[in-house]
């Protein structure tokens, strides 16, 4: 098990997350793909923390997990509010801010 193998897995997961955000239309699916990307970044953080034997990387991951929880709560609240308004979670249909 080498650091570069772990970074490869992390990069592959991040790429999948980006493709999901770009290619999918459901708002909740997009939120899940964002979680995927955050996790890929966390994996890279932990890998580098182990590589340099420093605990800072793990603390950054702790903060990222907290941020992800906040992001999920607010994002899902927005999805619920939009669903109440437009009866859909399709991001192509949600263009209230466009003129």
């Amino acid at each position, binding site marked *: 098990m080498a650091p570069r193998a772990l970074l490869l897995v*992390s990069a592959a997961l991040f790429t999948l997350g980006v493709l999901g955000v770009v*290619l999918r239309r459901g708002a909740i699916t997009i939120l899940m*793909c964002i979680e995927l990307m955050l996790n890929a970044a966390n994996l890279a953080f932990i*890998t580098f923390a*182990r590589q340099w034997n420093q605990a800072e990387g793990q603390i950054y991951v702790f903060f990222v997990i907290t941020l992800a929880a906040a992001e999920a709560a607010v994002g899902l609240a927005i999805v619920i509010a939009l669903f109440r308004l437009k009866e859909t979670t399709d*991001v192509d249909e949600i263009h209230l801010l466009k003129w």
Partner: protein
Amino acid sequence: MQLLAFFVLSLLALVSAIVVVTHRNPVVAALALAFNLVAIAGFYFLLDAQFIALLQVIVYAGAIMVLILFVIMLLNLKQELGGRPSGIVPRVLAPVLGLVFAAILGRAFLSLRGGFPARAPGYGTVEAVGREMYTRFFYPFEVVSLLLVAAMVGAVLLAKRRL
């Protein structure tokens, strides 16, 4: 043994991530995401970050996934929203981003040769992480608690019908 665990975990993580991105049914995608999060917690165990691995299982695979599944079932999203998004931006952006990240992937593979150094004593334990968090990272820690309060208030404000 460690190598075998690494291969099994990466296979699980990648396959479940592909299911998250491609599956039509959001409930299946959410369960695959929970699977993916547990596989990544396994990676953290392999990398001697026990505290963060447990946190990942409790907070991510527990709390956040329950929240997502709850909303999916609340909105009764069964089988909608397949296919590609309309518009020129995703159609151009997706291949470009794919190529850019493939390049980053190749760069990551070529750099950083060799294995991990020996583990420092006490690395990754609750004691080590907690000591660091409550001394050097004390103020960021407090700011994060403010962020959580803001998220809580924001979520209630957004989802409540009438205040």
